[in-house]
């Protein structure tokens, strides 16, 4: 009986919330021509396409009742309607909460295993309710703190108008990225709080000894959170150097290759900017990969790894400078014996600003394509 309940209710909740989307398929027939619109007007057609896709996704959600499909559908609806109405309706968040709870309880519940906290009968109702409030505040207080922190951070970013903050605050995608990162960090905090609270409420010697004796769980090598951010900062130092060399060598070839491939609809982009975009993204990913591996070697103190990374780094710098000098002077022997660091330095200094502007351009145009920003 309960299993039927747990299977039926998620589908009912999602069907209720997506009712008008699901019935719109019956009301207006599915318009295939809108798919062809994307070649004529790529920026405007994308939200419409997303809306069509969300109809299919809503169907799948009602059919399967899984929280993942539900969240994907909600995301698609919000993104496709973001231009007119960027607010998330409260009903969909409550629906997500309900579906998650039902999914978790339905998959792990086994009859007869519930436990209760016992009080003496002398203790009054007030004390019981105080205990309940304390228990709820264990979850509510960190969440409120996290939400307050994020809201204050974003408001401060929007209201301060100096330097890089202007560029960052205008772009919705950066705000979303910031919120997502800080939110995920606080979420892992809440998860740990749950585990600690459950261990303190029901202390069990066997379970505690098992966890304490298990070396891999206790002797954690301390891994700082936001490792993504650290790799981002370090690799953004080293990637313009690689970019400069790639641009001088491969840039002209890529220009010729791309020239014929651009559809006429995207006229503001010409082949040189596309080349710059491709090269900057590839140099950034390459330096990201190298930096993350090297930092991991340093953290885990693998001596062979560190030595190998240092040797490779020296070789890479030498190769970069030699190639650069070769492009400028076309004399292999001279560039091998006498590579010109000053030339590379000057060019890298010039390129530093325009390199990062490439990325701002990418994020900006991405958000315009999806329809977030006007």
């Amino acid at each position, binding site marked *: 009986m309960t299993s039927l309940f747990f299977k039926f209710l998620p589908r009912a909740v999602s069907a209720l919330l997506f009712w008008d989307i699901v019935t719109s398929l019956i009301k207006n027939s599915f318009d295939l021509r809108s798919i062809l619109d994307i070649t004529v007007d790529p920026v405007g057609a994308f939200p419409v396409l997303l809306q069509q896709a969300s109809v299919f996704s809503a169907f799948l959600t009602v059919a399967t009742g899984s929280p993942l499909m539900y969240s994907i559908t909600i995301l698609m609806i919000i993104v496709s309607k973001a231009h007119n109405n960027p607010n998330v309706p409260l009903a969909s968040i409550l629906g997500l909460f309900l579906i998650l709870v039902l999914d978790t309880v339905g998959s792990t519940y086994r009859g007869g295993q519930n436990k209760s906290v016992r009080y003496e009968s002398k203790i009054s109702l007030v004390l019981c309710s105080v205990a309940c409030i304390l228990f709820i505040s264990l979850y509510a207080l960190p969440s409120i703190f996290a939400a307050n922190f994020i809201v204050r951070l974003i408001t401060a970013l929007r209201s301060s108008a100096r330097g890089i903050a202007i560029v960052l605050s205008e772009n919705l995608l950066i705000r979303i990225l910031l919120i997502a990162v800080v939110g995920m960090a606080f979420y892992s905090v809440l998860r740990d709080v749950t585990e*600690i609270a459950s261990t303190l409420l029901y202390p069990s010697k066997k379970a505690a000894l098992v966890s304490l004796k298990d070396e891999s769980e206790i002797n954690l090598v301390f891994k*700082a959170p936001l490792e993504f951010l650290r790799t981002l900062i370090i690799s953004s130092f080293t990637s313009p150097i690689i970019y400069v060399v790639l641009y001088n060598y491969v840039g002209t070839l890529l220009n010729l290759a791309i020239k014929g491939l651009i559809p006429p609809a995207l006229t503001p982009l010409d082949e040189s900017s596309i080349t710059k975009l491709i090269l900057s993204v590839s140099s950034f990913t390459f330096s990201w990969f190298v930096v993350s591996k090297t930092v991991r070697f340093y953290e885990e103190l693998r001596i062979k790894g560190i030595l190998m990374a240092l040797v490779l780094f020296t070789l890479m710098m030498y190769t970069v400078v030699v190639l650069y000098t070769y492009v400028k002077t076309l004399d292999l022997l001279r560039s091998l014996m006498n590579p010109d660091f000053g030339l590379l330095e000057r060019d890298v200094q010039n390129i530093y600003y325009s390199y990062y502007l490439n990325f701002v351009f990418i994020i900006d145009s991405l958000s315009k394509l999806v329809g977030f920003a006007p």
Partner: protein
Amino acid sequence: MNGRGRRSIKPYFYFAVGSAMLAFSFLFLLWSVSYMEVGKVATSLISALAGLSLLTSSLYLYRIAAYVYAAEKGE
């Protein structure tokens, strides 16, 4: 410090150090918001990173304190 019938101070010690780190993490996180208000984005993010690192380490210490407490008190 850990006699057969005497209460041990080990879980309380871990708990105290964990609370100190928690207080420091709040400090760093509040500084991060104030830096963002002045317009120093990078400083604010680094301070948020420090605050969150301290938060995770304080939670790690709390977890260890809970395990030690359970190992000595539980049945």
